């Protein structure tokens, strides 16, 4: 397995270089170093000299990909792409345009993001799986029918509606929890109750429907009939046997997102004032801060690759027949 993981990590290198290249190209299609300088220096009273000074100081005075004025390997290395990308692979993200250390900022914001994403993930998974199993238990009954209708209705509603409606109903009308905000430590709980609940509710419709399909497929297998023939109760059949055997398709969708929990949620963080990494990315895009955008995309790619490897490893845990070679 170690060799397999190592091989997958090596495969990741060209992927990360590619992602970095695409991010770089896309960013500089719509922004030039001059635009970045103007965004930082402001639009009032900015002179061409000031823009030039800013670019020189930040290393944005070089060509993007190819430096015709340089000699030898310098034609490639003395470019913005090379200079800004190389350090990334040692996880040295440098500084944001406002001078802040990006790695430090990420560390500061990871906590709030996880505080929101982790309970949402666990509760959401538990709720969706449980709800799906209940629907399967009552399959072909009115409960199953109305359950599916409810799922379709819930997945048809925009998550923005859940957020705005939830804030209005629970925080404004019923005055049960704060509308938005965040506090470190245990006090964070009262700020997280509503966003977590809303995130879980917003996701349960589509997830439960997906899991129900998986369970229904599983329940028609021979071993289920055997289990029933042995006299096991439906509850034991479903929760002990079907759930375990349906784990591979569930894990495929679930484990891969676990590392991405660090990245935060753009919308929920924004509306609930949670100072996580999702809102950091939004701020950076709005401020045309290439250093931060690039770092966030890079970290996102790394975490996604890690998620895929973890998914593969998790297969071996739930299904002994799977071998990683």
């Amino acid at each position, binding site marked *: 397995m170690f060799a397999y993981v190592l091989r997958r990590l090596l495969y990741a290198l060209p992927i990360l270089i590619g992602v970095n290249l695409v991010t770089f190209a896309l960013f500089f299609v*719509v*922004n*030039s170093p001059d*635009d970045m300088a*103007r965004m*930082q*220096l*402001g*639009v*009032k*009273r*900015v*002179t*061409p*000299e*000031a823009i030039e*000074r*800013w670019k020189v*100081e930040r290393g944005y005075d070089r060509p993007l990909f190819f430096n015709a004025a340089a000699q030898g390997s310098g034609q490639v290395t003395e470019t913005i792409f090379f200079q800004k990308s190389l350090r990334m692979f040692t996880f040295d993200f440098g500084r944001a345009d*406002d*001078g*802040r*250390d990006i790695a*430090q900022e990420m560390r*500061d*914001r990871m906590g*709030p993001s996880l505080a929101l994403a982790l309970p949402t993930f666990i509760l959401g998974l538990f709720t969706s799986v449980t709800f799906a199993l*209940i629907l399967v*238990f*009552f399959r072909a009954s009115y*409960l199953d029918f109305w359950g599916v209708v409810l799922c379709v209705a819930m997945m048809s509603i925009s998550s923005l509606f859940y957020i*705005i409606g939830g*804030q*209005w109903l629970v*925080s*404004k009308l*019923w*005055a*049960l*929890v*704060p*509308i*938005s*905000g*965040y*506090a470190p430590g245990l006090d964070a*709980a*009262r*700020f997280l109750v509503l966003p977590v609940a809303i995130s879980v509710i917003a996701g349960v419709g589509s997830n439960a429907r997906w899991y129900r399909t998986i369970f229904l497929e599983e329940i028609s297998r021979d071993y289920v009939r055997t289990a029933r023939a042995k006299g096991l*109760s*439906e509850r034991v059949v479903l929760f002990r046997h079907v759930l375990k055997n349906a784990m591979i398709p569930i894990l495929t969708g679930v484990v891969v997102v676990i590392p991405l929990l660090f990245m935060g949620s753009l919308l929920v963080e*924004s*509306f*609930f*004032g949670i*100072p996580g990494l999702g*809102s*950091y990315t*939004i*701020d950076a895009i709005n401020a045309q801060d290439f250093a931060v955008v690039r770092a966030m995309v890079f970290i996102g790619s790394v975490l996604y690759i890690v998620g895929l490897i973890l998914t593969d490893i998790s297969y071996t845990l739930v299904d002994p027949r799977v071998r990683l070679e």
Partner: protein
Amino acid sequence: MLRRFPLLLVFCTFLAACGPVWNDPYPASEQGRNIMYSAFTDRPKHLDPVQSYSEDEATFLYQIYEPPLQYHYLKRPYTLVPGSAAAMPVVRRYDEGGRELPVSAPASQVAMSVYEIRIRPGILYQPHPALARRADGTLRYAALSAADLEDVRVLADFAETGTRELEAGDFVHQIKRLAHPRLHSPIFELIAEYLPGLKTLQKALAAEAARTSGALDLERHTVPGIEIVDRHTYRITLKGAYPQFLYWLSMPFFAPVPPEADRFFGQPGMAERNLTLDWWPIGTGPYMLSENNPNARMVLARNPNFRGEGFPCEGEPGDREAGLLADCGKTMPFIDKVVFTREREGIPYWNKFLQGYYDASGVSSDNFDQAVTMTSQGEVSLSDDMRDQGIQLLTSVSPSIFYLGFNMLDSVVGGGPDAEAQARARKLRQAISVALDMDEFVSIFLNGRGVTAMHPIPPGIFGAREGEAGINPVVYEWRDGHAVRRSKDVARRLLAEAGYPDGRDARTGEPLILNLDTTPGGLGDKARSDWLAKQFRELGVQFVVRATDYNRFQDKIREGNAQLFFFGWNADYPDPENMLFLLHGAQAKVKESGQNAANYVNAEYDRLFEKMKSMPDGAERQAVIDRMVAILQQDAPWIFGFHPKAYSLQHGWVLNRKTGSMVRNTLKYQRIDIERRDAARGQWNRPIVWPLMLLAALAAAAIAPAFVHYRRRERATALGGGR
């Protein structure tokens, strides 16, 4: 029982922590305390006083730093008064021969202006580790090693703080910082025009910066034109006459910064920990930044070393009746702490204001109808809901303008080099100025929150006339005591005179096509573009919107490739020079990289501008401004759009609040009636629990038949089928 049900224990603890109000976003320890609660949307980019140049940052910086001058809080028109200066600066002007000139001497004779500023003795800096000293007088944290900084994450991690008296040298140090090559001060070029020594300093510092990546020592350099007279007096010598310099002296660009702060933050390892002057300001003002987490909240705490300042006893007519002089002479600041919470979205911000968790709020388009009602006469008043909550509405016209500019380099709307073509293009611009009903624009798209502009100078700034003398005669006529927009027929006539009868070129018969260059979501977005197209259609002119992203739009403006464009300007200071320079030929965007986006050049206007900018306010200056305005109205390089009206809401417990965009150090004047606020919050935020019980009951109602169904199935036999 609680031991058996740990979840119940957690829930009970949770509710107990919430107190009688469950949705209070602030810690229980803050209840009943003299704290003001506010919000911010965009995180401040810079808190270094030589870099900061935006309104978001001013909210914080003006409370921390004390420039030599400040605006009187209540007086209008805006009046400069001493801030950290002991008195208004003594200004002396000299000719080429070094002879002192009288105040009335024309600017052309002035070779240099000398500003002597005496600061108040006894002003102390806020407690700060940069100023901490050992018993022997040496700085405590001036030579930090990597080990010293190992456990340091925020400024509060430094155990010791210190202070010292404000000195003239600190102001001089800050002026030198304007030239710092790594700080990129936005006003460096402007100030260096009048203080050429700064350019010399910047060259020297740039050379030093190229040699070392470490901190630059400004103390080793001197700047010609700036001198320290004594411990509390310094002198600035400007080239020529620049009376607007006094306004700059009221901004943080000229606030004092102790050299110890640069030395402290410039040490290796500090920037890596985000410990910079750009992040942790150090000032002498009424407040100091005690918490800086721009992702979530920023906190200003009362500076314990602030000298105290008396609340003003004079204002403009109506201030006494409004209760704004009730605190006359009382020592400021009144509020102990100001908590700014980051709210990225308008909806939670608004709802929290209605719950009483923010003391004041703006009025956005989303909540305008909920907050404000308009009478049939166009008068604005608070909605009944707002009034019932004791909310008050404050309005003021901002010293800003939004305009539709014509690019004078464009052959169609600018006319090109030919005089006859220029005259025709002028008629075309006049026709469009008449046809585009900006009153309707303000009414439809701004809910009436704007004043239609007659010229570039906003109301309240010297030079802006009211009544008949203040109208734009090309677009309006004075009828029955009111400005009445000229009819579309006038616009059609002007269009025909321009060579486009019925919107077609008289020579070629081709339709006239005008292009608006805009950004998505800007002033030219879909609804507004449709409205503009309708206005043009009435003249028979075809109208095309060329939407592009913000960067490309700026490129078009810079390169002179736009035709019509929306632009705006927010005045730096209340002087007509700061508005009329936007059309000065020397500021042309394409040729000079200046602020004149229309690239308008008129020799007479430029000559008058040069004369006007150095004149003292008075009848003579007014006459010059009148002529300049008349030129602009005739030439119509802009459609003078509107001056936005700022609408602000505040709860009844906020006292002494007066609007006025120029006055930014407002927090020290404001006061909070804490008891009233606590009572209102308690009354407005009583938790309603029955919906939770109802939900539980509904869930039980749904689960019960399911449970019955489950039991029936579990008991069912193959033959019985569960029946």
